């Protein structure tokens, strides 16, 4: 129906029941109805990657899913990465911070969610694997190097290895 439908989903661990018009994308639902504006919208047709979120743990473009299709799904956005109680940043956030991953950061939420999905499947990716997996996210500031460094820093942080800043120094020539 083109009338609003009521859907229920888990958003960053919390249940939400909400009315949504069929033509509203999941991205617009998250930003405008739920007020979670951390998810950014760039191209709105799946090409730029800024709106990438996790649905049932898998990365998807939230601009290419209807809000109504999120009924019964478990959604994670950038707001769901930090520890909800202590507020401690997720390793990928710490890694990007350490490596000065971004400049303007418009693309950051999409990159971070793509990187989280990658590290979930492959906790110790090679530089090429990171490059391949993040190939669907566009950044117009950095030239990507510092973003790849940030993912590598996150890998070190996750594995409890605190030498990541030395690794970065060794990588300057790469």
């Amino acid at each position, binding site marked *: *129906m083109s009338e609003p439908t009521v859907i229920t989903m888990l958003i960053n661990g919390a249940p939400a029941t909400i009315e949504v018009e069929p033509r509203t994308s999941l991205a617009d639902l998250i930003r405008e109805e739920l007020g979670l504006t951390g998810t950014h919208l760039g191209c709105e047709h799946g090409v730029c990657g800024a709106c990438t979120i996790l649905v049932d743990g898998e990365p998807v473009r939230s601009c*290419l899913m209807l809000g109504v299709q999120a009924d019964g799904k478990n959604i994670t956005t950038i707001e769901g990465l930090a520890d909800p109680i202590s507020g401690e940043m997720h390793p990928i956030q710490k890694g990007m911070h350490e490596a000065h991953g971004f400049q303007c950061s418009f693309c950051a939420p999409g990159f971070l969610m793509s990187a989280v999905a990658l590290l979930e499947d492959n906790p110790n990716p090679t530089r090429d694997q990171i490059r391949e997996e993040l*190939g669907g996210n566009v950044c117009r500031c950095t030239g990507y190097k510092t973003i790849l460094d940030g993912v590598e820093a996150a890998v070190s942080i996750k594995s409890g290895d605190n030498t990541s800043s030395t690794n970065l120094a060794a990588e300057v020539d790469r």
Partner: protein
Amino acid sequence: MKAPPFEYHRPSSLDEALGLLAELDEAKILAGGQSLLPLMSLRLGRPEHVVDIGDLGILDSLVVEPDGSVRVGALVTHRQVETSAEVAAHAPLLHAAAPMIGHRPIRTRGTVCGSIAHADPAAEMPAVALACNAAITAVSSRAAREIAAADFFEGYLQTVIEPDEIVTRVQFGPWPRHRRGAVVEQSRRSGDYAIIGLACWLDIEDNTITDAALSFFGVSDTPIRVAEAEDVLRGQAPTQSTFSAAGRTAAGVLRPTSDIHASANYRRHLAAVLTERGLAKATAESGETR
């Protein structure tokens, strides 16, 4: 960049879905949405009704049959195919093509059957289906029918599927033991649609090519097999010079057009290059002598 309004339907059974498609005008099936939703956002598509088949659990199976054929239900995603060891073993071309499609978040939702039904001539899956002459099953409230991939594609985004039909599955026949295949493509950036690509296989017995398929995408308004170049391969030894001869023939036969991405001449050049590269890759990966 917002989709125009439409009526949304989410049937919970195949019969209900088929009933809706039979009775509604201007209805579109929504599978993964990775082609339909961008078209709607760009307002290139304005269906009045969208029938979401996402709840039809009966369509979600990915099965290897006892005879080795692989059955891919309508809800099976590119990502499922990409990560399945069974698909790698029994439908190697399908498995090889999947990671070339867009990027991972596109593959999380995009479906193999949706890609075939959408029939973008630059897409990988239609060309793979054609290379393997896969059987596509379409069901409506009137009847069920099986369509060979060779009879399925009619033109740019055009297939023989009627508006009231759902593609319920695509079935890839058993992959013979002596068959070697590969998918190769040239695109501007990794993850982009190909400027041109090739899904190919060779049957090799006693160092002789007994049968071959060369199925190109991005060179015509449908995926296209080049019988003349396949003929060049049959009966020959699988050598570099045989592959080059087939590539020259393919480049001579194909009539690609020029567009913003590449000129017709460049596409013809790439057809020859990809034929050599694809056949070399197919035979190299199998450990066959070249």
